[in-house]
């Protein structure tokens, strides 16, 4: 790392963050006439933190946590998810997705690990949205700001949710808030992983460290530095270019499907209402 340390700019007041996010969850869930939430618990830090927040916001007895292991998932993941369930006292259920995913993999010769991972993410989404209907519960998203900006998520898979309390927190901020809220230590300490295959880590797969990329994203996105200004600030040119390209080329994942305009008034273009307007 040749640039100055900007990590202090990512420091947050956890108590203030907790207040805003709890109020957000309570307000946006209840205003649509719903009392419950459903959340997929991977055993990782993001879903653990989101589960802590939603349990504090609407009460653990109103939260349905679902563990969704695939046969190659690490046993630690199940155990870590159980730590969260036990600590909070939320409802819990475990649904094996191997039997949903494997038949499609079996009839798809040549399907690579990434495509298999996407299938798993979408199978989990199917279960969560079914449980959403079953319990009249909204699906809580767990994608953090770093993942959203880099496009490190499966469209209509783990990126699908009704509302997401973590989407404006960088990964390093998720860690800060998790520590403050008392998320179990083994979950905080382990390397982040999508757990799609054995030994996978986010940082290994992306070839980026969260501690480093969060500082660059903070300058690019929050402070509106141009890529050139980031290089002047001390970041390596190739690194800046690569990260900025990831942000741009993943933008489609952050937007809904685009619609061809024909009429005077078109959904997604000039039919302008907030989602809250509908309730």
């Amino acid at each position, binding site marked *: 790392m040749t640039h100055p340390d900007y990590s202090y*700019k990512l420091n947050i*007041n956890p108590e203030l963050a907790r*207040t805003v996010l709890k109020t957000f969850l309570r307000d946006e869930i209840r205003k649509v006439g719903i009392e419950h939430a459903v959340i997929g618990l991977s055993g990782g830090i993001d879903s653990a933190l989101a589960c802590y927040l939603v349990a504090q916001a609407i009460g653990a007895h109103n939260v349905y946590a679902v563990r969704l292991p695939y046969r190659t998932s690490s046993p630690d993941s199940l155990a870590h998810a159980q730590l969260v369930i036990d600590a909070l006292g939320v409802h819990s259920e475990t649904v094996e997705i191997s039997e949903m995913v494997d038949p499609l993999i079996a009839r798809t010769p040549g399907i690579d690990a990434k495509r298999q991972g996407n299938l798993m993410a979408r199978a989990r989404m199917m279960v969560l949205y079914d449980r959403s209907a079953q319990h009249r519960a909204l699906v809580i998203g767990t994608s953090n700001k770093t993942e959203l900006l880099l496009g490190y998520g499966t469209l209509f898979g783990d990126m699908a949710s009704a509302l997401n309390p973590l989407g404006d927190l960088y990964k390093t901020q998720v860690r800060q808030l998790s520590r403050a809220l008392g998320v179990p230590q083994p979950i905080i300490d382990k390397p982040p992983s999508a757990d799609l295959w054995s030994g996978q880590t986010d940082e290994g797969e992306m070839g980026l460290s969260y501690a480093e990329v969060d500082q660059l994203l903070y300058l690019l996105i929050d402070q509106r530095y141009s890529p050139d200004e980031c290089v002047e600030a001390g970041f390596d040119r190739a690194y800046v270019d690569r990260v900025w390209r990831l942000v741009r080329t993943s933008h489609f994942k952050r937007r809904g499907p685009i619609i061809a305009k024909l009429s005077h008034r078109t959904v997604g273009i000039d039919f302008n209402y907030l989602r809250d307007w509908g309730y």
Partner: protein
Amino acid sequence: MKINLGLAQISPKLADVRANCELHLAFVERAAAQRIDLLVFPELSLTGYTVQDAMSEVAHRATPSDPLMSTMLEASRRLDLVVGFAEVDERSRYYTAGAYLSQGKIVHVHRKVYLPTYGLFDEGRYFDLGDSVRAFDTRFGRMAILICEDFWHASPPYLAWLDGADVLLLTSASPGRGLGMDERLDSSRFVETVNKSYAALFGSFVVHANRVGFEDGMNFWGGSTIFAPDGELVAQAPYFEEALAVAEIDLADIQRTRKRIPLLRDERPELTLRELKRIIGH
């Protein structure tokens, strides 16, 4: 003269005027029970903030015969009110408006003169610009209403002060943003700092009613305040929670402060005007 001021820090329901009207009447009821003289509601308190294409359904005329206005006027027989609404004029132009209502009469309507249209704001797309800043007389002295972005600019509070306003009634639907190490959001810190400064610079009471609640993930931080003419904080509502904040203020504090620091007496508007004319090339 001492008056009881109330700040109605509510969470309006987006684009549901009927529900918000009931919420207003419930707060009027609570305020009347506490012998409040003047109750101030936030910006767009009767419509919610991000009205967008629902504008034509939620906007009302600022005339006594308008059904919404007549309901609020009826309530104003019990105590003076400042309410926020989307105003439509006779030619279908829309304004972010704040009305001072007292004893069944519309005393004053202010139309927001600065419409933020940047970042998370898109007000200029939906609203027209108000074109005047005026103080007005109430039974408690001369006051002025300014709405949110109006007081992020220094000129409207300055104009209101020179026009005789001794109490600035500031209303907003201020979206919270800027999470850092501080125990307040950047937006809260900014607004509190400028409001405290206006109070001290003008030797006036500065009353700020802000809303709470969420609209599609955007939070409104509340924390409504009253600052005294010496810049001291008199009362503050909690952050992020609905509340009715109440404080008794002594309007004589204005004269006392100005005796000590005669900034108004020594202000030179003709100098300001001369230099302004030079600066803008007139």
